[in-house]
């Protein structure tokens, strides 16, 4: 071989010529690929991080307002004949009085002159159905208040609350009016005559709105043109668009306003008129807040007010906006920390709903889970790690545990339903059953963690104990287990955090009922925090969306604390052998 190499001509040994442009180009292209590949990794991590940030930010932003709640502060009269008609100061009777009626009366006094059933109803809808709960407790605790007038904090309804939190409309006020405005009446249907063409701009913008709407209809009709099923619908759309065109193509003709346009109002003489029809210098509308007189208002003394978001796109109607704006202007509303969210159970009314019931349910459930799966998990892992003889039986147990760890959680729910509820006849919806199912669900996790912790204890410790004559069990229970305990606790806490966030199996065993009361025991019907989140997320009221997000914030805080504790434990007791 050696002498043969000597004979090979040098041209047979190929060497890279790094100086050649070809080679340099190749190297450059290889480095470009390298950089690109690296960027893929960075991009993947960035996308993941961004997702997490967006998720958390979205939920915090959605949920944060729900930790605050708006109330209206009113002087509520507590006449003795309503609150305590018999005058015997009987607690049950005082409790039974209709405080909501008193609260409504107080509200009517704060916004006087509201007439008509619909208007009165909408005024009352500002208050929560539990608005007077605090007042009731106050009076019950202190009956000397009866017969006096107290300044009471009355909870606002969910929609009113949302409006005050900014989920309503922006309001613009145009005060540079040029003409003299004369209303024809102080309440009811009113016409306002203006001496100049102050309304011309409004008319133009209404026409523009109509034109946009017509255009959208036309586009929709064109999109559906090819669809044979939509023929009738397309015809309707075209007819509607034509109707709109008839209106917006004639610039100065008077217009009517509807709920899909911004609401325009005239503020004059201390009252407010919502415009329903308008021409250049004349507007017709309904009085929302009564006027003091029909006197003429000079230029600049009256205003054109606009609620920019159309009535149809918000949860509070024009009247409620008007009322709330009045209360706000009079400094009668204030926002407080929503303690009730943490101290009350579920409710159909978003502003009254709290998570205490769900929290207690989750706590009871976790207690059951912990009591079952910590001892069983530790015992099983000791058996598998220290005592099990390697045979087919232990193999089966091992394969089993590894596979159980990956069985979908909903299947555990089926198990709970079929075995615990139907076979053993345990009560539905109970934290006991929830805890049992969760224990089975997290048991594999805990066993795997506990085995790792036991394995990490060096065998020399066990040998030392055996060497002085400890039995195997003594060596394990006196020495190995205590040393493995931090690791086992870390695994257990992570398992518990998993159990706290798990939802699907609980739905199967009926922990999804609407339960107002805070559960008192392990066999009572209860719900759990993640299930409460699921229940609320399904409800149509927009205020429940914020509540859901707020409940998620609470859940995430708990999970964060639990995982933080686990990490701290791991760091604190981590031992290098």
């Amino acid at each position: 071989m050696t002498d043969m190499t000597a004979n090979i001509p040098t041209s047979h040994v190929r060497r890279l010529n790094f100086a050649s442009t070809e080679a340099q180009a190749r190297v450059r292209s290889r480095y470009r690929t390298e950089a690109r590949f690296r960027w893929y990794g960075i991009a993947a991590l960035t996308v993941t991080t961004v997702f997490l940030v967006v998720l958390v930010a979205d939920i915090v932003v959605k949920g944060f307002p729900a930790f605050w709640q708006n109330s209206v502060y009113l002087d509520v009269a507590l006449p003795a004949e309503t609150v305590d008609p018999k005058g015997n100061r009987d607690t049950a009777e005082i409790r039974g009085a209709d405080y909501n009626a008193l609260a409504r009366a107080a509200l009517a006094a704060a916004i006087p002159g509201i007439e008509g059933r619909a208007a009165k109803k909408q005024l009352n809808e500002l208050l929560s159905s539990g608005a007077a709960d605090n007042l009731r407790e106050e009076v019950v605790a202190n009956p000397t208040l009866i017969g006096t007038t107290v300044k009471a904090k009355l909870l606002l309804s969910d929609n009113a609350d949302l409006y005050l939190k900014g989920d309503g409309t922006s309001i613009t006020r145009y005060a540079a009016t040029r003409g003299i405005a004369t209303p024809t009446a102080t309440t009811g249907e009113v016409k306002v005559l203006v001496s100049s063409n102050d309304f011309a701009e409004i008319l133009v913008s209404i026409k523009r709105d109509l034109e946009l709407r017509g255009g959208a209809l036309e586009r929709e009709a064109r999109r559906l043109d090819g669809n044979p099923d939509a023929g009738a619908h397309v015809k309707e759309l075209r007819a509607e668009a034509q109707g709109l065109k008839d209106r917006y193509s004639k610039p100065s003709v008077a217009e009517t306003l509807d709920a899909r346009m911004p609401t325009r109002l005239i503020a004059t003489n201390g009252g407010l008129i919502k415009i329903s029809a308008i021409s250049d210098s004349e507007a017709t509308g309904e009085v929302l807040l009564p006027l003091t007189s029909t006197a003429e208002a000079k230029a600049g003394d009256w205003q054109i007010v606009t609620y920019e978001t159309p009535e149809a796109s918000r949860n509070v109607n024009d009247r409620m906006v008007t009322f709330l704006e009045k209360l706000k202007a009079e400094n009668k509303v204030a926002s407080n920390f929503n303690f009730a969210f943490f101290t009350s159970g579920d409710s159909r009314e978003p502003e009254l709903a709290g998570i205490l019931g769900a929290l207690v349910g989750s706590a009871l459930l976790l207690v059951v889970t912990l009591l079952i799966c910590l001892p069983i998990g530790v015992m099983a892992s000791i058996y598998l790690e220290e005592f099990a003889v390697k045979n087919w039986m232990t193999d089966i147990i091992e394969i089993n545990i590894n596979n159980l760890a990956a069985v979908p959680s909903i299947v555990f729910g089926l198990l709970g339903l079929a075995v615990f509820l139907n076979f053993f006849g345990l009560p539905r919806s109970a934290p006991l059953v929830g805890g049992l199912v969760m224990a089975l669900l997290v048991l594999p996790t805990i066993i795997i963690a506990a085995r790792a912790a036991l394995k990490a204890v060096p065998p020399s410790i066990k040998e030392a104990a055996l060497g002085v004559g400890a039995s195997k069990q003594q060596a394990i229970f006196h020495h190995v287990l205590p040393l493995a305990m931090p690791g086992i606790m870390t695994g257990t806490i992570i398992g518990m955090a998993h159990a706290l966030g798990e939802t699907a199996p609980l739905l199967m065993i009926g922990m999804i009922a609407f339960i107002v009361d805070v559960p008192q025991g392990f066999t009572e019907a209860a719900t759990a925090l993640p299930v409460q989140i699921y229940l609320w997320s399904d409800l149509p009221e927009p205020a429940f969306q914020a509540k859901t997000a707020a409940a998620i914030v609470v859940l995430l805080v708990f999970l964060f604390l639990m995982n933080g504790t686990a990490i701290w434990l791991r760091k604190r007791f981590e031992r290098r052998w």
Partner: protein
Amino acid sequence: MDTQVAFESQSKAVSSMAGTKPKVVARDCNVYYGEKHALKNVSVDIPNHSVTAFIGPSGCGKSTFLRCINRMNDTISICRVTGNILIDGQNIYDPALDVVQLRARVGMVFQKPNPFPKSIYDNVAYGPKIHGLARGKSDLDDIVEKSLEKAGLWKEVKDRLNDSGTGLSGGQQQRLCIARAIAVGPEVILMDEPCSALDPIATAKVEELIDELKSNFCIIIVTHSMQQAARVSQRTAFFHLGILVEEGPTSTIFTNPSDKRTQDYITGRFG
């Protein structure tokens, strides 16, 4: 051929012990790790109140044999032991014998110091506690003190008995392990290369200690170092490939071995 020699040398070793009553007697001891035959037909008599050293190249079976004497091999599930080992005439592989009580009689010190991650006091007190040796707290204190004194550690640690045992230096840890072993009052102490993880000064201290302890115990020590065997032991046994090649007074083994393999090992031809 090899086995023939082994048998001869073994019978010689056994016969040379005639006259004194041996503490530990092994007859036809075999150990299997699964399929592997790790120890072959070992028979030996070990006298009381002396130090016996097991020497031989790595993997020769000396540690395996040592672990047979307190049945530590039981903890390895694939390990199987046949033959008899008698301590004071009692067969330690008798099924009626409680292995836990055996290990209280036969203490063990391991290659690497392995104190429990507990206080110095608890390290020593653990054995007496589980065997019910102490009648009360003061009795236990007494046992701990005596054991630490015997291990030559009392002066160094008496002011910090509540400190962790793992905080001591390597040599101190090993002496603590010796104190822990003698606290249960064993008759035999097995030492599996007790100085291999220690520096020369700590080794000297431990060797000194072994020398002092031999008046009270039957000590069996496995060592890699022939110098150490020569320094501390009265008798020496040479193992090779799972066979006990030769056993006799240390001076004889080192100066006038009867087997060629012993000669080769001692003069450094292999190992």
